[in-house]
């Protein structure tokens, strides 16, 4: 949350656009991060996981 003691200024349209692009990039990076751990888990488990005794 913004500190009320520090005066805030309006972002310019260019700065807003940059922030939006950064937000999208962070979202994509987080998605890739999740996908990476999913792939890693599947590969580490290996095919044997399908033939384990139930």
């Amino acid at each position, binding site marked *: 949350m913004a500190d009320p003691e520090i005066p805030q200024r309006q972002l310019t349209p260019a700065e807003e656009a940059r922030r939006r*692009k950064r937000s999208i990039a962070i979202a994509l990076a987080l998605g890739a*991060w999740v996908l990476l751990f999913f792939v890693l888990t599947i590969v580490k488990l290996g095919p044997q996981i399908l033939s384990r005794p139930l």
Partner: protein
Amino acid sequence: MTSLTNTIGPDAPAPAFTAVGGDVPDYFALLKPRVMVLVIFTALVGMVVSQGHVAPAIGVISLLAIAVGAGASGCLNMWWDADIDAVMTRTAQRPIPAGRISSEEALGFGLFLSVASVLVLGLAANWLAAGLLAFTIVFYAVIYSMWLKRATAQNIVIGGAAGALPPVIGQAVVSGSVGIESLVLFAIIFIWTPPHFWALALIKAEEYARAGIPMMPNVAGPASTRRQIVWYSIFLAPLGLAPVALGFGGLLYAVIGVVGGVGMLAFSVRVLKNREGEAEKRAAMGMFGFSILYLFALFSALLAEQSFGLFRPLV
């Protein structure tokens, strides 16, 4: 040497323009993408010359983690060296000195990626590889950037170890250990680094002096630096053939190693002889450019021999 009090490191005066956050490509630039490509390439060669097997997906994820770790150390280097970068034409347009990204942001970005890359490599491959990556990041960001670079003319000699470690990490990923193959590749990059960088430093000596960086030409003088370039090249040429003697470099590698080694010697002698004006610049830039080609050719030969069935043993 010029006093650098209050002008170095993160306590340096802030640039006139305070960053409100850069564009996405600025954050990518913080990772030194060209260095990342070199790191991926040398780590991959370290993997293919190793005994052992790793699932392709694990190999790709490991290479990605190694590349991101290298990028993180580059980011931390840019955070620490923003004051130096600002006074050198080659680096003045980097995101921090140009005011597009604040140094606090770069620090946070670099630290996060450092921890994340080590964690991913440890989980994907093994903790030896992850430990080596962590050591590489700390060595480059702390030992080289924060200490050696501003303290001694041997900065890039010792600091070169960080750039030489990726093949060792690559071998650790595949085999879970460190063997003679990757140690030889480490030695080749380590000995290659000084003549490569000093060739550039000969041309950029004035800029390094202005930034207060004790590069070899500024401390020992250009004549001594030229002699040292020749000595390192004399040592590098036969060392480049060590993979042949050890049996993991074949005929193709041997040919490239011999031709490249002779080329390195020839270019170093040219640097030694041409000491003034345009001829000096041409000789130094020739050495700088050829040294990149030499290392790239050596590692490409190993990759081609091991991955595309071109290996013809000589010993």
